[in-house]
């Protein structure tokens, strides 16, 4: 018997075995429903979780937010303003067509010509790409105007689509002129209907009915390792109680975000669970920029939050460990910076943020507020895990050092517009740095607002520090990883010293599932069928 035949036989047997062992359906209970199947529609966690079953980006993030090859097998900065991606020749779309450089050009063109998208963070990224060169079918040069080291991280959220879904001549990257596409650009409705859902990912879209759920089927053409489940059914059950009963009653095999207080019950009922620290940090953003702040009443008639000593005192007053234990039921990690330790640009070995009410009082007195002042904390009560209780606890800690603190919580649809209008003095925020490195949080929440540079867009506290801005801007233009990492650490350090936002904890993603399943959680909180396997 010759070797190729043997290999074929073995492969055939393996397929057969894999087929019998895993010809099953995985039923998932989601906490919120994806709003579209269009991969370029809206960058939200539920949408991305669905999309990455079907589509793939050039590079992907693993469960710990480390970059890894996906459609591109390698990538490097070939000069200051060029990123070169080598595409994987094996990659195929579900219709059998090979994935080529043309599809990359088409995908970026569609992102920039997507009339139906809402809130395209993707557009921001694509706009930085000023030219795309395709010397051969499997090489792509992405050119940017300035050095752009985090481009690969951001491209991990840019799914690639098949160029055949629109009529086109030779494709070239000229988004304003239409790139050579001769028919209308596909809309969100075209994707939702399913006929344009042609991806390179492990699953195919079988059906998508809004409000009812999504059914996925294994992609027989998939060029990577076949996923464990033949079919995946995802149903959204927003309320945690019914979602849990769905699991207990056998309607679901796996649910996301069960309430932390139910974990004991889940364990006692013979189910398993996974807790995975996420990149989402919870924090209070302080109105540090303005002379007067709407929800602050100071004996001196000024805004004490402008004073860094006051902000430090507030941070010192908060016992993060106790909050995590008592309010988060242990399902969170106390934060000592704005992204989890170990991520790119985080401060290595940073000590926990101190809890020291005595020192806090002294600091407050030093700053000129020995009798404190009055402050209202604003927060949502239906957006983040235990957001209202968390705010109550922080208010009590602040009251203990003499800051008379009130709490005002409201539903998210009222909260977010109010915060954007700067009607708050201390507002609860939550942010997952999906790029897996430190520049992301700094860019949106800490740096001085500058729409042209695309920075500081969520800096509602109007904090501004030219030194920090300088270090940050230098960092995001430095291609050398070691240098960039050092610069980012320096910026994070300044932000922690100045404390315009007080980090509280990192939320954890939680999943509960049947005990005969193994599930690996992801730091970006996406629920992926590909991360679940039948237990051995």
């Amino acid at each position, binding site marked *: 018997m010759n070797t190729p035949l043997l290999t074929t036989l073995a492969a055939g047997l393996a397929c057969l075995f894999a087929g019998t062992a895993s010809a099953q359906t995985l039923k998932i209970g989601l906490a919120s429903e994806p709003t579209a199947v269009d991969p370029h529609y809206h960058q939200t966690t539920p949408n991305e979780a669905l999309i990455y079953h079907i589509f793939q980006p050039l590079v992907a993030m693993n469960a710990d937010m480390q970059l890894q090859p996906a459609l591109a097998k390698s990538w490097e900065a070939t000069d200051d303003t060029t990123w070169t991606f080598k595409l994987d020749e094996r990659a195929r779309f579900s219709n059998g067509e090979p994935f080529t450089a043309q599809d990359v050009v088409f995908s970026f063109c569609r992102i920039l010509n997507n009339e139906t998208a809402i809130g395209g963070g993707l557009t921001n990224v694509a706009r930085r790409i000023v030219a795309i060169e395709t010397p051969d079918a499997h090489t792509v040069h992405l050119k940017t105007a300035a050095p752009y080291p985090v481009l690969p991280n951001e491209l991990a959220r840019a799914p690639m689509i098949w160029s055949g879904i629109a009529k086109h001549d030779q494709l070239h990257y000229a988004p304003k002129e239409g790139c050579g596409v001769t028919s209308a650009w596909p809309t969100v409705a075209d994707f939702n209907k399913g006929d344009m859902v042609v991806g390179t990912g492990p699953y195919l879209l079988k059906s998508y*009915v809004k409000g009812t759920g999504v059914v996925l089927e294994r992609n027989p053409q998939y060029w990577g390792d076949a996923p464990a489940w033949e079919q995946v059914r995802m149903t959204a059950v927003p309320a945690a109680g019914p979602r849990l009963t769905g699991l207990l009653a056998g309607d679901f095999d796996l649910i996301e975000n069960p309430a932390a207080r139910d974990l004991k019950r889940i364990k006692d009922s013979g189910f398993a669970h996974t807790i995975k620290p996420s990149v989402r940090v919870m924090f209070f953003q302080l109105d540090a920029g303005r002379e007067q702040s709407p929800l602050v009443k100071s004996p001196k008639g000024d805004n004490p939050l402008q004073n860094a000593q006051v902000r430090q005192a507030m941070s010192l007053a908060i016992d993060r460990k106790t909050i995590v234990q008592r309010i988060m039921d242990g399902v969170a990690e106390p934060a000592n910076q704005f992204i989890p330790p170990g991520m790119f640009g985080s401060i290595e070995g940073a000590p926990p943020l101190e809890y020291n009410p005595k020192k806090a009082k002294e600091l407050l007195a030093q700053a000129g507020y020995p009798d404190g002042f009055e402050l209202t904390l604003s927060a949502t009560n239906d957006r983040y895990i235990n957001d209202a209780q968390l705010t109550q606890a922080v208010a009590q800690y602040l009251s203990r050092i003499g800051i008379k603190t009130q709490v005002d919580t409201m539903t998210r649809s*009222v909260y977010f517009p109010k915060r954007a209008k700067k009607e708050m003095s201390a507002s609860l925020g939550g942010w997952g740095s999906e790029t897996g490195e430190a520049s992301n949080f700094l860019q949106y929440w800490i740096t001085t607002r500058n729409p042209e540079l695309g920075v500081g867009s969520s800096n509602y506290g109007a904090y501004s520090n030219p030194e920090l801005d300088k270090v940050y801007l230098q960092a995001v233009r430095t291609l050398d990883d070691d240098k960039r990492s050092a610069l980012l650490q320096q910026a994070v350090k300044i932000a922690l010293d100045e404390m315009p936002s007080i980090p509280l904890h990192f939320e954890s993603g939680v999943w509960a599932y049947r005990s005969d399943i193994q599930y690996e959680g992801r730091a970006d909180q996406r629920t992926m069928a590909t991360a679940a396997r039948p237990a051995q």
Partner: protein
Amino acid sequence: MAIFIVRRMLQSVLVLLAVSVVVFAAVYAVGDPIELLVSPDVGQAERDALIARLGLDLPLWQQYFHFLSRALHGDLGTSFVHGVSAVELIVQRFPATLELVTVAIALTCILGIPLGLVAGLYRDRWLGRGIMGGSVLGFSLPNFWQGMVFILLFAVWLGWLPASGRGATVDVLGVPFSLFTAEGWRHLALPAVNLAVANIALILRMTASGVSEAQSQDYVRFARAKGLRPGRIVRRHILRNILIPVVTVIGMEFGTLIAYSTITETVFSWPGMGKLLIDSVYQLDRPVIVAYVMLVTMLFVLINLIVDILYAVLDPRVQLTEPSA
């Protein structure tokens, strides 16, 4: 009859116009959907483009005018969140709600009327008292609590029925219904009963009090004196007379359940219209909320019309044309 219907249609148009003004103004006065839709990593240019595309930069009266002119062409707007037609979203959810409500109303008729009849006829016996007593429980237990007890009992402890969602569907004339599969019925059972319980109690009590009242009326006594069989008296004389208010209430309940079976749909994660409404309110998806209220208003107008016509069928003395004097 024809004049009556035309007149009612004209009235309906006025009602719809008035409702549209009120709803539009109310919904558009609340909050700013852009802050919910757009994440902070979106640049100002994209943000402005989106605001312009959704028409949120225009003054309220202009937005209303645009809405009205589109509505006249049958377009009630595009969902902010889903990017597709609001009516399409609602219509997609409609079959699920319709079948849930139809089963619940069927249960109400099948159980409510006979039980009420028995309770009315045997008012002073233990059977009648038992039924009346049970009915108090039926509408005094909160709907959501009942639903949760059902789930706990039948789904979690006994494991007989699924706790959430809708079963496999079969397309009938292109519309997906789960009424035609066993799995569909398994999913339908708990929410339908949950939705029906309060209504059964209501109809039961209405029927019972109607029956006991009718029994003391002269025409029933006369029929009895004539020596008619009791069964015939109940069918021809009692039931026919008491059914008019019952039919009205069932009609209104049908509409109410379709429009607002929100609690049951939420508890059982039933993918119907009520759940869509709640989701849309949370997300400030204005076009969907407005379209929803408009469609529901139309539904009620229609149901009222049908109920009026049914009156005439049940009781020939009811005149559909107004007296000319």
